[in-house]
């Protein structure tokens, strides 16, 4: 067991554990591509990956992917098709788990990837939804990954690109007609937050080794609830790390320099 790993490797390892064997996983851009690869080659050998570009796979690509549309992701694909067909499967409730990257997340798991500040003249124009809102609304459950910074974990996002548990009242999603179950976890560079099954607010479930509950609370923009049974997040195992490094041999996604992307 190695003790040396990057925060991104930690996030990928934790994300991979969210994938259950047999899941159909809607794999988003960047780190989730690695998380699918790690899970598929470990505890979830029959998990399939669905990519909005228009692909389904039952195994990771053989070489490094900069994007889900890179040529290695097409080789041995089970289906190369239109994006709307992939979305159809998700609308039908056939996607067990989705991943969404977020720029800002709030207490109730809502994501903002559109506008910081006013949409008419934003302070920061973020890239937008992509398939994020589709995943947030239609997948059975989803997870978001982000860098843990106080400016990113906010009380309420000013713009809801991808709805989580809305205003946090129980049953908000069902009342508003959202088909999927919503976010189950936020995986950050410091910790894992989880949501109650019926929705509501994020609760600190585990803190990554080397970090503390106090540090996490200080870096969180609301008064973060802490689970009674809060634990330390399990470190990436050596086999998890080996898999991550196999699929990201140059640390494109999982080294310190990756943090500066965006």
């Amino acid at each position, binding site marked *: 067991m190695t003790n040396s790993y990057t925060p991104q490797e930690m996030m990928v390892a934790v994300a991979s554990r969210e994938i259950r064997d047999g899941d159909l996983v809607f794999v988003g*851009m*960047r780190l989730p591509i690695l998380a699918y690869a790690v899970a598929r080659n470990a505890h979830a050998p029959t998990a399939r990956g669905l*990519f*909005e*570009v*228009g*692909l389904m796979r039952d195994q990771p690509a053989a070489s490094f992917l*900069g*994007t*889900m*549309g*890179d*040529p290695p992701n*097409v*080789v041995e694909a089970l289906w*190369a*098709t*239109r*994006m*709307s067909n992939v*979305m159809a499967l998700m*609308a039908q409730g056939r996607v067990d788990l989705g991943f969404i990257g977020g720029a800002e997340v709030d207490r109730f798991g809502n994501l903002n990837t*559109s506008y910081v500040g006013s*949409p008419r*003249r*934003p*302070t*920061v*124009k*973020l*890239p*937008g*939804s*992509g*398939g*994020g*809102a*589709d995943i*947030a*609304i*239609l997948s059975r459950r989803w997870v978001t990954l982000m860098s843990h910074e106080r400016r990113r974990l906010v009380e309420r996002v000013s*713009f*809801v*690109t*991808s*709805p989580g548990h*809305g205003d946090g009242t129980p049953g908000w*999603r069902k009342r*508003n*007609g*959202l*088909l999927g179950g919503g976010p189950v976890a936020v995986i950050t560079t410091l910790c894992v937050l989880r949501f109650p099954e019926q929705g509501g607010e994020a609760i600190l479930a585990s803190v990554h080794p080397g970090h503390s509950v106090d540090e996490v609370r200080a870096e969180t923009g609301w008064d973060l609830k802490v689970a009674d049974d809060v634990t330390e997040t399990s470190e990436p195992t050596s086999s998890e790390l080996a898999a991550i490094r196999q699929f990201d041999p140059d640390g*494109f996604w999982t080294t310190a320099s990756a943090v500066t*992307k*965006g």
Partner: protein
Amino acid sequence: MTGKLMTMAEAIRQFVPDGTTVAIGTALEPLIPFAAGHEMIRQRRRDLELVGPISDALFDQLIGAGCVRCVTAAWVGNVSEGLGHCYRRACEQGMPRDIEVRDHTNFSIALALWAAAWKVPGLPTRTLLGSDILTTNPGLRHAGDLVEVDAVHPDVAIVHVQRADADGRAHAWGPLGITEEAGLAADAVIVGCEELVGSEVTLSDPNRILFPETKVVAVVHEPGGAHPSPVQGHFKRDHSFYRDYAQQSRSAAGFESWLNTWVLGVADRATYMTRIDASSLRITKHRPSAPADYGDE
């Protein structure tokens, strides 16, 4: 039908006047018609409305060059690097000009094109419920328990494909994103291709033909026309080119410099291809598909 074969410069001149609504980059990360986009920039096209799902750097470049009035898309940035810096400057500072943003999701932009293809005002969907995107795009509206997605009707769709013939029968493979619906929804299609082939190749596999040839107005033989995006069977993605673009475009001056080097100071795509290390990107290991037997007697 003849006379569709032309240079990219001719195709853009004839079929993409100022103010055109252009669907481009419809296969998401692969097959992005950068050569067509760069030609629009060289021809100083103005007031375009760009339509696409996610745009991997191309929309950012067109916006930075001042060609764009409106963006109708789900995501504009740089897939492996993050934010689109020209997009940010346009939205945050009106630089080089203000643009209108009509936010979509990937699913809703596909539906908007299907609506246009089927000639209906819009289509219903269950996505977008609970999203504030409904508050900023007037073409997306709550309707009972559903959301109504208004049709988006491109004047022209521009695609890059692996091969096409001179009459515009285009073969593409790999993930296709919203390419098929964009071509059906558009009034006209411009096809750029890695290989210009005879109709004995395209018609040998009519199921792989993307669009009715009657929609195709121009065929441009443009090898490498999708660089730095990948083309299955031809080119890998040039990740470092995207990284360099992201770094240089962080400042307006850096972007201008990038633009001069890679677009304005380049006559055409053939010249551009001499300035990249194409050989390191070229895919050389072939993986031919099993043939389908179209025999009839």
